[in-house]
């Protein structure tokens, strides 16, 4: 499947290389550098480079499948026709694994957000090389779970929070084997059918954190009619549980997990939350879910994403925006924007930011608003209107005007000849792309799909008590308004 793997820095220098199979030489890495990195816009080619035309390059029987991770390139070389979906999933899984491991994952969630850098990779090249040796066997990804890898890795990462314990375990294992003691329990490979959890985990305080995060994506037209809206939600969990706990999880009665009901059209009567195509973490017993509609699982230790879902009907749109953008003559634009919040009045939305695009070459701008702060940012050609807090059921208005340069008299004179036309158009309102107005925000303890968690039961042999925490949040994905 995977013949070789390379990691490059922004210039195209190889930071990591690993061959899994015969069939290519190491210098195949040059082909990728020449074909992709040096011709790309962000690579060494600079501004003259071109857009990425396809994330996959096939030359002869050899294919390069690659992703970007901030400035780095992670590239898999494959021969003949291989499972591209598995390779891409592997690349993204590897990326997040490296992030967690290299950024010292005391808090896995935070370290996933930190970017990978060439420095990090070089400083841990030994560890990465060893990881690559373990996560893939003969080109087939086998297991990218931290809990599994902890037992196999001998290299200590530079900023270690993860491997500390396991290394001591390993050391004792080594001592034992050298003394000739046979198969002490630590020494046995932790291969069980539940590959994502080690047996024998112990906590003094058993806790489980549940985090429902929703990303709402909306596209509205100028009349505030919704052209498209959907919610991508995830339920993330952090578990500090002893032993091998069996968890059961349930949503409110009004929620329907849709996937085996006959007709979708028959369903969405108001008040129900219809979750479509929910996707579950590998620990969830899918056949149980399919037959009994119960989400049952043995969770991995630490943080993980239990499920993701998609919701398209009965979405509570948190904001409605009514834009009016008018051209006044050839060089002036006037904006009038009304924004209305449609969530409970006591809930505040934070970090609300409305980005109102303007054409290039604005020389004068003026704006006034009923609340919040607005400012014109010439470097990005946007007016940004910000609120620290925006409570529910409120309405605010912004009016603005911008004046453009470069539309003096001679433009109008030359307007008839074709050659000049294209030139003048490049500055004028006519040729303005009108990118949509975008909205950013975050609302805590509000789920715009209406989803609510009703129960979460933890069952373990030793019957301990578990402390449970639940949190909801909604933030904006692409919240676009055309005008």
């Amino acid at each position, binding site marked *: 499947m995977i013949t070789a793997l390379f990691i490059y820095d922004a210039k195209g220098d*190889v930071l*990591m*290389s690993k061959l899994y199979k015969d069939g290519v030489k190491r*210098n195949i890495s040059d082909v990728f550098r020449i074909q992709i990195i040096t011709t790309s816009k962000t690579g060494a080619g600079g501004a003259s480079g071109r857009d990425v035309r*396809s*994330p996959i390059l*096939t030359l002869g*029987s050899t*294919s390069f499948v690659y992703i970007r991770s901030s400035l780095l390139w992670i590239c898999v070389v494959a021969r003949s026709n291989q*499972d591209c*979906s*598995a390779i*891409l999933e592997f*690349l993204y899984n590897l990326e997040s694994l490296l992030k967690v491991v290299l950024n010292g994952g005391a808090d896995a969630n935070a370290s996933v957000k930190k970017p990978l850098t060439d420095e990090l990779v070089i*400083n841990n*090249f*030994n*560890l990465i*090389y060893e990881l690559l040796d373990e996560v893939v*066997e*003969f*080109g*087939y990804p086998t297991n990218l779970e931290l809990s599994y890898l902890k037992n196999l890795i*001998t290299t200590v990462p*530079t900023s270690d929070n993860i491997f500390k314990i396991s290394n001591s375990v*390993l050391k004792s*294992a*080594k001592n034992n*084997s*050298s003394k000739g003691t*046979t198969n002490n329990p630590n*020494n*046995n*490979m932790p*291969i069980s*059918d*539940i*590959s*994502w959890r080690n047996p024998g985990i112990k906590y003094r305080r058993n806790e489980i954190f549940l985090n429902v995060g929703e990303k709402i994506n909306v*596209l509205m037209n100028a009349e505030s009619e919704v*052209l498209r809206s959907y919610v991508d939600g995830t339920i993330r969990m952090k578990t500090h549980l002893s032993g091998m706990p069996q968890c059961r999880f349930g949503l409110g009665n009004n929620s329907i997990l849709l*996937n*085996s*009901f*006959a007709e979708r059209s028959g369903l969405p009567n108001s008040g129900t939350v219809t979750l*479509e*195509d929910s*996707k*579950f973490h*590998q620990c969830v017993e*899918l*056949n149980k879910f*399919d037959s009994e509609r119960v989400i049952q699982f043995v969770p991995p230790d630490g943080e993980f994403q239990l499920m*993701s*879902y998609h919701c398209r009907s009965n979405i509570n749109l948190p904001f409605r925006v009514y834009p009016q953008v008018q051209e006044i003559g050839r060089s002036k634009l006037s904006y009038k924007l009304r924004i209305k919040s449609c969530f409970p009045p006591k809930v505040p939305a934070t970090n609300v930011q409305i980005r109102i695009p303007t054409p290039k070459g604005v020389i004068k701008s003026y704006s006034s608003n009923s609340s919040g702060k607005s400012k014109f940012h010439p470097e990005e050609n946007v007016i940004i209107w910000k609120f620290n807090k925006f409570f529910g059921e409120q309405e605010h208005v912004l009016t603005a005007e911008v004046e453009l340069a470069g539309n003096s008299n001679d433009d109008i004179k030359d307007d008839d000849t074709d050659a000049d036309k294209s030139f003048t158009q490049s500055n004028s309102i006519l*040729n303005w*792309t009108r990118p*949509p107005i975008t909205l950013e925000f975050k609302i805590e303890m509000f789920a715009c799909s209406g989803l609510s968690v009703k129960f979460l039961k933890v069952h373990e042999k030793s019957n301990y008590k578990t402390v449970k925490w639940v949190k909801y949040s909604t933030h904006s994905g*692409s919240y676009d308004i*055309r005008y």
Partner: protein
Amino acid sequence: MSDGKYFAKSKSVELRAELEQALKKSKPQPRIKIVLRKVIANIILNNNELANLMPEITNLLTIDDLEIRKLCFHYFTNYAHINPQGATEALPIFARFKDDVSPVVRALTLRTISSISNKDYVDLTVHAVRVGLKDSDPHVRKTAAYAVSRLYQHDPKKTEAQGLIDDLNELLYDKTQVVVSNALASLSYVTEHSKALSLTIDKAHSMALISHLSTTNEWCQIYILNSLMSYVPQTSEEALDLIDATIPSLQHENSSVVLNAIKVIVYYSHYVRNPELVMPTLPNRLGTSLVSLLAKPSEIQFLVLRNVILLLLGNKDLVHFDVEMFFCRYDDPIYVKDTKLEIIYLLANEQNVLVVLKELEEYATEVDVSMARKAIRAFGNLAVKLDNAADECVSVICDLISNGISYIVQESAIVLKNILRKYPGRFNFAVNEITKHYKVIDEPDAKTAMIWILGQYCEKIEKSEQILEDLISNFKDDPIEVQYATLTAATKLYLKIPEKGEKLVLQVLKWATEEVDNPDIRDRGFIYWRLLSSEDASGQNGVFQENTKQIILMPTPLISADNDNIDPKILEELELNIGTLASIYLKPVDHVFRLAKRKQLVNSPALQRKAPRPITSSSARDSTPEVTHSPQVNQNPTYGTFSPSDNLHQKHDSGRSSRNSNLSRKKSFDSSASSNEEGGSRKNSFAKMLSKKASQLAQGRKGSKS
């Protein structure tokens, strides 16, 4: 603690010296590890010179430290093939390691020795693997499973002769699920690379494998799902059972599990009659599970979207999508936008066409040139595909043309030509609109289209002869397809309006026959010349060029948009390759990957061979000869059949051009303005018709020249 400072190329001499220094210490381990880290850096940096260090590294193997051993193993894996003699020295040590008490060491040893292709190592591995496959520790068994396929890579004959493949097969009944699925992965490598071997599993085993799905990790699920493709259901009920059992996997977070599950379901649905009626929820479930993958990173989105196209080209009833889910997002990368546009076109139908048109108009007015062009092309294709959308499409296109922006006009000219052919006489106002802006047209495709329009509608266009003259002023430098179009258009103009066209046609024919080097153009020129100057040209009752008109001005055959179908055979193979690299290219698998093993549906009583639907068979690109004869699409009804070689060419072309769902420009031309390849066969027919009169014609040509 940072390793960064060791990340550099070194020479074996330096490292050897460092090692010697280290070994003098009472506790050498930390120093040795540093040297070995430098070695790893050199492996990464592709420095083959370190192969000289083999004896020293062999010595280090005897140190009882797992980390040192692991690092040494990496060294052997990478350098043994460069220094085979040196590597042989280490054989006895490895032979000892393979029976180590620690399963970690046993597994590592197996992995290392199986990676080395030297003959001695292969021999050692054969024995070690046989034991390893029956090891008490599952981790070792798993490693041994992969060691078999590594051996197979080095020496397939020996691996088979030693019965290791059979031993590996035994692992499929292992009690540990992880071992089972990894054995499946290893076997899949072997069967992919062997002509004779293939995996067969029975119903009971496949159900057993499915029951493992819920408890293994994501990668194991992928391998298990893939192995399900090896079971051939004998009855529809069996197939339905298996589909039922696979459905839960559609909910998995890992996109690869989902795509592989879809592959399995599509495969089994070939063994059920009308699966969408038997399982009414299936289309929705497949559709939504794919759509939900669009929340993944754009590379994965792209792959998913390509597979959506594949499914739409196949059995459309099996999947259900809402077109709105494929509307482009402002910040989608270009490859995602392109693919979405293609899907929007495929999904457009009478019901949703208004929504679609509105969305496309949005794209067409964007500044992103390539996107705008593609949107216009989609307008054209939709107009041809959906009768009731045509008016709306054409009026949008006319609107767009009226701005006079060069690339929009050019693209519009191309699509307009198709629309005019589909609805002759319905959109004459569009002809006038495009002629107003003919000056900006300079790209070959657009020019070809514009010249065709001029030839076809010259009597309706004011001053058509002047416009044509303008367009063809640098005939000799034009690409060949423009030259063909020019020849035909000039001839048509002459036939329709002789008094205006005579000068032009003479000029063009003179250029074509005397100044162009391309023999095909010259031949075409001569043929027109002879047709026009033949004594039989005017027919019996003396009407001007009556016979010639019959040949050249005959009504153009209608085109249809049904050519978004792939040859069923190619489609069948692609459907068995959902999620693979080939699914991105949507070409016959063996065209892209020469070495890939062919996959096809295995016959069984339950297999539903779809009778070619009438729509499919009317496609001009269908490679079966009967179809090329069908009057609706035949490109040159007057002149009979294509030669076998033409058929071959079509077959070759079918995968690529049809999936573009563009009306291929070459083929939608009328009979007289055709492409290079087809010119050949047509020439023959011309020649046959004319051979009788060869001598007279030759005279005629002299006459017209003088």
